[in-house]
């Protein structure tokens, strides 16, 4: 595959006594969807925050388009072309949908172009088949899934090179999940690099080219989606082939056999 657009080497991050990330590597190429999976607390969101400039790594190097870079602030990340949808969405509840979409990058700083922003907002939301009745209500009055759509729409503004999605489909309905997966495929076709964090194996297998497993803050395997089974990924996530997931599957298999 082509040279990676973004590549992380030996990234470590400690929060006091907790080593959230230890020596983590990650590569994303243009037109590639990388799924980062791992158990709760594995360090996925921490990795996302380092990529988006919310936290800075304690050690390690980040290379973007073959240049070593520092991502010292969210503005720096956006300037490079890395857009992020955070797990907690990071929306301002008192502002309306348009204001949230364009927060920090409003059109015409000294005389806001509200019409152009509203038109663009509708375009973005239509693209995601968003079910949002009006863009002029405060985000606080939207449902969880609607908010998630707004957060995803926001990351598409300004044509970023890398889009980082931290559990983008967690709160979405069936149709919106499918739209987001379609969107991810479209992003790949348009040559964007996508980093997707998800607990949903079906989603991961549906769109990801590469699966990167984190376990307790460390790399625990990189797989090409084509030649790996869900069991193998789950084994890497949990750290054992004989794990709670396979045990459950075994039990259900046994009862189903017993019933038939």
């Amino acid at each position, binding site marked *: 595959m082509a040279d990676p657009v973004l590549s992380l080497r030996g990234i470590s991050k400690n929060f006091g006594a907790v080593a959230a990330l230890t020596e983590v590597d990650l590569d994303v190429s243009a037109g590639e969807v990388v799924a980062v999976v791992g158990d709760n607390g594995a360090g996925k969101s921490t990795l996302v925050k380092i990529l*988006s400039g*919310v936290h800075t790594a304690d050690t390690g190097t980040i290379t973007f388009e073959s240049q070593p870079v520092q991502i010292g*602030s*969210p*503005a720096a*990340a*956006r300037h490079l072309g890395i857009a*992020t949808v*955070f797990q907690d969405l*990071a*929306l*301002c*509840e*008192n*502002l309306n949908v348009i*204001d949230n979409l*364009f*927060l*920090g*990058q*409003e059109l015409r*700083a*000294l*005389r*806001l172009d509200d*019409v*152009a922003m*509203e*038109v663009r907002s*509708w375009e973005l939301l239509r693209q995601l088949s968003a*079910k*949002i*009745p*009006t*863009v*002029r*209500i*405060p985000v*606080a*009055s*939207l449902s969880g899934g609607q908010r998630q759509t707004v957060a995803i729409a926001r990351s598409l503004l300004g044509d970023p090179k890398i889009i980082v999605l931290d559990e983008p489909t967690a709160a979405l309905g069936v149709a919106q999940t499918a739209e987001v997966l379609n969107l991810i495929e479209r992003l790949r076709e348009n040559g964007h690099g996508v980093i997707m964090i998800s607990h949903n194996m079906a989603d991961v297998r549906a769109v990801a080219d590469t699966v990167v497993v984190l376990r307790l803050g460390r790399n625990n395997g990189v797989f090409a989606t084509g030649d790996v089974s869900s069991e193998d990924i789950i084994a890497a996530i949990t750290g054992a082939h004989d794990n709670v997931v396979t045990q459950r599957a075994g039990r259900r298999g046994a009862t189903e056999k017993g019933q038939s």
Partner: protein
Amino acid sequence: MTDTDTAPRSTATDLQDERLRQSDGVAGSVRALLDRVRGGELGLLPVVAGLVVISTVLQILNPIFLSSTNLVNLLLECVPVGVIALGVVCVLLVGEIDLSVGSISGLASAAVAILFVDQGLPVVVAILAAVALGSLIGWVYAQMFNRFGVPSFVITLAGLLAFVGLQLKVLGPIGSVNLPFDSGLVRFAQLAFLPGWLAYALVVVAAVALFLSGYAHARTRRKAGLSDRSVQALAARSVLLLVGLGFAVWYLNRTRGVGWMFVFFIALILVLHYALSRTRWGKSVYAVGGNVEAARRAGINVRMVYTSVFMLCTSLAAVGGVLAAARLAAANQSTGGGDVNLNAIAAAVIGGTSLFGGRGTAFAALLGILVIQAISSGLTLLNLDSSYRFMVTGAVLLLAVTLDSVARRSRKSSGRA
């Protein structure tokens, strides 16, 4: 698509969702307003209602209250504290507070008097110096806040004490400096009124400008395929403004008329309103007040926002102090003391600025200070001393804060928090 003033068109982009209840026409607007109020979006409604009630009661108790003479005076009295309240609105919007605005205004009035009268500097230089001093204080506050994370109420509480001290020090043992009555500054605050024709001309300009900007906006929206207001609605709004302001000007012109200082206050409000609602800076102020972390992650320079807001607040406090000195034609030890501080903060809150941050408009300062001045003037007319004024103002403030909290709760329960 050519000009589609009359041509029928398909549903606008923003009105296509079938769940959207139409808010066309008068009935629709009224229903939309009721929905908003029930959902806790009170806006300026409570304070306008309060103002009407207070004026009615005071007018019944003493018919002089709504006389032209008294209103002319009342509007001028509003300005110094109103300007300070304008700054307080800004800090409240980012969810912080400035408790030292009163003493900063006192210090600024002392500074302007000393520089102008004792040092003999040109009055403009003295004013600029006093305002610059105010900005400097705000800058220091912002550094303390941004770098060391000291809560704003502690920083400004310290400032409150320190600047009262500095004010006493600057004024020296005599403790009072008189400004000459023939100076431009004092005349501006006491004797300068708009000629009648100019006042009416400004009203007409305002109404026409409101209509034209609304019309231009509606046209761009229509061209972009969005819903727009009808020409009738826009015209009705402008006529309403024309008649309302026209009547006010006519009534005030029966005696002295509209003071220049009040026009200055209105101009400040309009500028701030524009900055808050139509610029990127304004949006970032609301964003920081709503969710600092989200604002930071959106790439907003949060520290810069805090710095600008603290500096704006202290600068406006200094301007208010200068105007207070001009109004009194003197700066003394009690300028900016007493209830100035609390009135300024109370005005912002009574006007509907939320203490929880992220909600409020520049007009809150105007409406809030009108309520406070109305109470003050009305009780003075009734020959009640300041003990009653304090108690009534306190009760109104409590009412306003309670409304704010209740509104916040109903926003939460109707998902608008």
